């Protein structure tokens, strides 16, 4: 397994803690998140687990700016993310993948990955329309980086294929690659290994570990596969019905009676 390729110069990779404080989200009378707080330490893998409907995806949507929190704040370092538009949050270095694929089916893998470079590139309508040399140079430079990342996640052979033609697991890898292409400081992974073959699972898990170890990116992980969570995570937050019911190291959480109860139902 190769180590993760270091990003080119010019990207801000200083790590910062992601702090979620008392976040509440309500939709039309339904409380999806209720005063949830946790902190993702810089350069760690932080898993958010819980039964279906616990509010994990809502939490991701707040972190990435898709939903607005009704109350509470999210900070990256000292910058407040709450209330910012998704593209501004992306610009600050927060990348995410989606639980259900969000890949344009007809675009090639290379194009999908290049989309991840959007925030790092500048060519606009005029530069690309007039085919200015600056646009061509930029494209080439970033395509080189895209190839490195594709190789890192094992998709270098599929670059020219439409993303929609790949098997499901590989499409999820493309999404992961696209998020990595953003050279993020924080990576939000929403069930990255669901629907994958055993082989793809191993590959993804090692990619995730490698990203943390060699790039120092903080990772927030929503995942149902407890084996993977326990192996990868440095810290775990457990949600149930929109509330944080437990938190700590994987070992602590595993033995927490509240967690066992949430997963298996009430003892009586």
């Amino acid at each position, binding site marked *: 397994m190769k180590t993760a390729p270091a990003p080119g110069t010019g990207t801000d990779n200083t790590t910062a803690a992601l702090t979620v404080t008392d976040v509440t989200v309500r939709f039309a009378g339904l409380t999806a998140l209720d005063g949830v707080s946790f902190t993702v330490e810089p350069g760690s893998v932080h898993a958010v687990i819980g039964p279906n409907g616990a509010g994990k995806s809502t939490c991701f949507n707040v972190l990435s700016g898709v939903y607005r929190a009704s109350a509470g704040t999210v900070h990256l370092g000292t910058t407040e993310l709450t209330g910012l538009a998704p593209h501004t949050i992306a610009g600050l270095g927060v990348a995410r993948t989606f639980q259900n694929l969000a890949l344009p089916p007809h675009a090639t893998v290379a194009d999908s990955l290049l989309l991840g470079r*959007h925030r790092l590139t500048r060519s606009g309508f005029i530069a690309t329309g007039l085919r200015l040399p600056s646009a061509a140079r930029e494209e080439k430079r970033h395509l080189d980086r895209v190839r490195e990342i594709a190789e890192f996640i094992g998709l270098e052979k599929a670059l020219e294929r439409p993303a929609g033609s790949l098997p499901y697991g590989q499409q999820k890898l493309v999404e992961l690659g696209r998020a990595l292409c953003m050279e993020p400081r924080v990576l939000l992974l929403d069930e990255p290994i669901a629907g994958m073959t055993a082989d793809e699972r191993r590959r993804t898990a090692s990619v995730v570990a490698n990203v943390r170890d060699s790039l120092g990116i903080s990772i927030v992980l929503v995942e149902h596969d407890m084996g993977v969570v326990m192996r990868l995570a440095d810290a775990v937050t457990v949600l149930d019905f929109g509330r944080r019911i437990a938190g700590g190291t994987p070992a602590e959480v595993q033995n927490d009676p509240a967690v066992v109860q949430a997963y298996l139902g009430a003892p009586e």
Partner: protein
Amino acid sequence: MSDTTAEAAPLVTTAPAPGGAESFTDRLRRPRTYAVLIASVLLLALPFYLDRFWLQAGLFAMAAAIGAIGLNMLTGATGQLSMGHAFFLAVGAYSYCILAGESSTENGHALTGLGLPTWLAAILAVLLAGAAGGVFSPIAGRLRGAYLGIATLALIFIGQHILFNAGSLTGGYNGRAVPPLSLFGFTFDDTEVVVAAVPFGSSEKLWYVGLVALLLAALFARGVLRGRPGRAMNAIRDHRIAAGVMGVPVARYRAGVFVLSSMYAGLAGVLLALVFQRTVPEYFGMILSLEYLAMIVIGGLGSVAGAVVGAFFVSLLPQVLTHYSDSLPLVSAPGTGGLAPGEASRYLYGAAVVAVVLFLPGGLARLGIALPRVTRPKKSGEK
């Protein structure tokens, strides 16, 4: 890694990069190069052989193609529906007349004109169309898809209202005459110039203006669609939320594409005005907007080639039917009680819109892969 480079090379050629482009000999081996070469020669030679009717028809089609490319960037590539294209065509056409025309009295109407050099007027007209699009951008940026389609209906009615009421600028019901374009002292009007024993009138001369304008418009659009903005636009179309999360400022992009497509419509409007030699308000009604939408669907959504193919199909169809109405079954000359060519062509392209969406996703341009494209499979942006 080496095989990756080989596979990825074609991707680089899409935006001809130094060092990434195909070699000259490679190009010579492609049948497509020859097809393009033959087509270019043919297009350049046509004014020597075709009569005025067909040249005019061709020029309409070229103008339509420019407008359709703009609309296809908005609707096809970004997924934003617009019914307001006719409005921006009108802005381009009328701005040109106002900027280039002299103040005069026509049919009892006092007409205002600034008398600017015509080439400058043409450029300013395109910019004005873009500015008009910019004024609408608070709505164009925030509304998505079909919502925008309905909102832009307003533009048609606003446009018609202004065209009929602002008589001193637009000439009202009668419209206004279009000053012929002049470039470097050469005027594209009906004063005859004989080239190789063929008398060149305005149509023959404008033919080359149209070709150059279409070529430049197409190349620019291709660059945009295959580059960074094109990827962002497609992302907005395919998955708006994901696009935002990837760092694409969705509203700003929608507004930007709307302005760009308005400028394309403006350029098409200028060219149409030059070909018509007279602008009339009725032309820029809702039917025109519908025709443009029909063009991009029939040709193929999201690609430059699709827009061009569709524009030629929709705008040449009535001409062909008119010309051959005698020899075609079912179609008869207008006013004789049978199926008029205009109606017949509307049936045909209305049906074509439905048929293409249901049975030929990708449009006619996808069929037209008679030009073998061996080396480069489809790129994103065509859908």
